[in-house]
């Protein structure tokens, strides 16, 4: 698994709630049997006009969003399908941090497995960050997983909560399966008592 310790990057604001995984990566791209190369299909339907040309209105297509690696969105980000292709596409596109008031459970979990950090903050703080993106050109945020703080160069600093185990795995890029297999004796014992 990929590790994550600290990341500073350009923020793109996506002022939308309930962004579902069908939007993040539409089904026609789920036919591939590889794990890589999904970035170019990210938000396919929103990013293109009907004739296939780039949609200049779409958040990620705007000039000021080029090179963004921190995604700021509204509540319930990543709802819908369990497809891990969604975090694969976001990560492949270049995102390392996603900030929202809430995430759908499966998506949230899938992010950690792919070296991306989803950060939950209150609606108020998220509102403030939307304001800051609008206020400061080329607005950047730094997410530090060691100290669990999110900060910017203009005086914003906010702690965020993350499950200790997931934090540990992400900081050290630990392989979940390898970790579980360290307890293989317990799995075997369980199987013997629960045939």
């Amino acid at each position, binding site marked *: 698994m990929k590790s994550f310790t600290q990341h500073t990057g350009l923020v793109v604001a996506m*002022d*939308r*709630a*309930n962004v*579902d995984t*069908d*939007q993040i990566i*539409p*089904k*026609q791209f*789920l*036919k*591939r*049997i*590889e*794990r890589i190369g999904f970035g170019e299909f990210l938000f396919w*339907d929103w990013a293109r006009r*009907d004739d296939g040309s780039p949609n200049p209105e779409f958040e990620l297509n705007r000039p000021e969003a080029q090179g963004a690696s921190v995604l700021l969105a*509204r*509540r*319930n980000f990543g*709802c*819908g*399908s*369990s*497809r*891990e292709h969604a*975090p694969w596409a976001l990560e492949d596109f270049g995102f390392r941090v996603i900030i929202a008031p*809430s995430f*759908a*459970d*499966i998506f949230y*979990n*899938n992010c950690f*497995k*792919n070296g991306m950090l989803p950060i939950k903050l209150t609606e108020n703080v998220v509102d403030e960050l939307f304001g800051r993106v609008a206020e400061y050109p080329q607005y950047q945020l730094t997410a530090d997983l060691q100290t669990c703080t999110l900060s910017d160069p203009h005086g914003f600093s906010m702690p965020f909560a993350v*499950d*200790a*185990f*997931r934090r540990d795995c992400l900081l050290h890029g630990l392989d*979940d*399966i390898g970790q*579980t*297999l360290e*307890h*293989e004796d*317990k*799995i075997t014992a*369980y*199987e013997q008592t*629960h045939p």
Partner: protein
Amino acid sequence: MAMPSSENSPRTLFEKIWDNHVVHAETDRQTILYIDLQLVHEVTSPQAFEGLRLAGRQVRRPERTVATADHNVPTTDRSLPILDPISKQQIDTLRNNCQEFGIQYYDLDDARQGIVHVIGPELGYTQPGMTIVCGDSHTSTHGAFGALAFGIGTSEVEHVLATQTLLQNKPQTLELRVDGQLRAGVTAKDLVLYLIGQITTDGGTGYCVEYTGEAIRALTMENRMTVCNMSIEAGARAGMIAPDEITFDYLRGRPFVPQDFDAAVAAWRQLPSDAGARYDKSLIFDAADIAPQVTWGTNPGQVVAVDATVPKPSDYADPTEQKTAASALDYMGLAGGERIADLQLDRVFIGSCTNARIEDLRAAAAVAQGRRVADRVNAMVVPGSGQVKQQAEAEGLDQIFTEAGFDWREAGCSMCLAMNPDKLAPGERCASTSNRNFEGRQGKGGRTHLVSPAMAAAAAIAGHFVDIREWK
């Protein structure tokens, strides 16, 4: 971390199943939870099998793993080759992986093939008290049997294949109690759409839902599956219903149930939540308040009664909700304020793991019998499995549908997610018995309204939505 509940204090159904599957728990660590059954399909598994191969790992319990192809399969004549080479490759990959790792696979030419959430219960793999996972969010369907069943990502699919366990944080419990009786014409689909409308599309996030109450107890097994299926549309990790005689009667005699069925039933009877067991949250509803439901927007929580009008953005106080409603209306080609019954349809889709079991098809056929699909409407029926198809044909339902002008298809997910050639054209408006009305879900630019099977059939015939309670 929450400590495991004591076996002596009253426990919920969820807690009993959870406690019974803990392999290892320690403070500040996710629990290692044993998984009894993993269901596998072609779309979310190739990378998991590839991961196993790269790490030189085996499938720990191939006999606890069952696979079929459903998402990406054609629903036209099965004797013809699959035209899309990438779809074909994905299905071939699953077949090869199952062979390599010794996993039971139901192939396209097998009558037992079908949507994974339809065939698991149908074949008796799904049983009360089990932990069940699948790389698919609608795994919550299996909770209808009193199982703890939830969707996982591909990395987790690989984790379960390799270890037969999963790392989990214990979810909180949410009781959704529906008292009283559903009114005539109101179905399980309406019930669950109503609940999602009430608690909203993320109201269940972080929870395992248990549906309780008289209206839930009265549902048939297939209807219970419809309800649990859509738990994820409220954001819930899982949805479950306590097993009872209806559950046991459904399972008795199915191919993969325990050999000593009576002993199994005796154990399953211990599963329902104890009197006095506490949920983290409980919400109570009255079945009599529920009318047939129709979604108007682009998430399943954007739903109203069939005799209502489409809301306007100004009906909402919160600015984010206003914006969400405005963009949903825009996508749906609606202004707000239209009567639901005035919405004209181009397509009707009866299918999916929500509503493509035999009872669903019977309900739709009862409405369609002796009628004709409206000229402007293209309607299709896609059975949930090969066995559902056979049963429907034995009952003559296919005749009723085809005589009425519905297209009768082979089993699969089909236009529920439109990964195969079955899809909406941009701007087409569709009444669908599936579970997601997301933008583009049934085809780019397609406009989906979620309804029950009877409502979908009636809409096909009338060419617009009708209140099934007034259908003669």
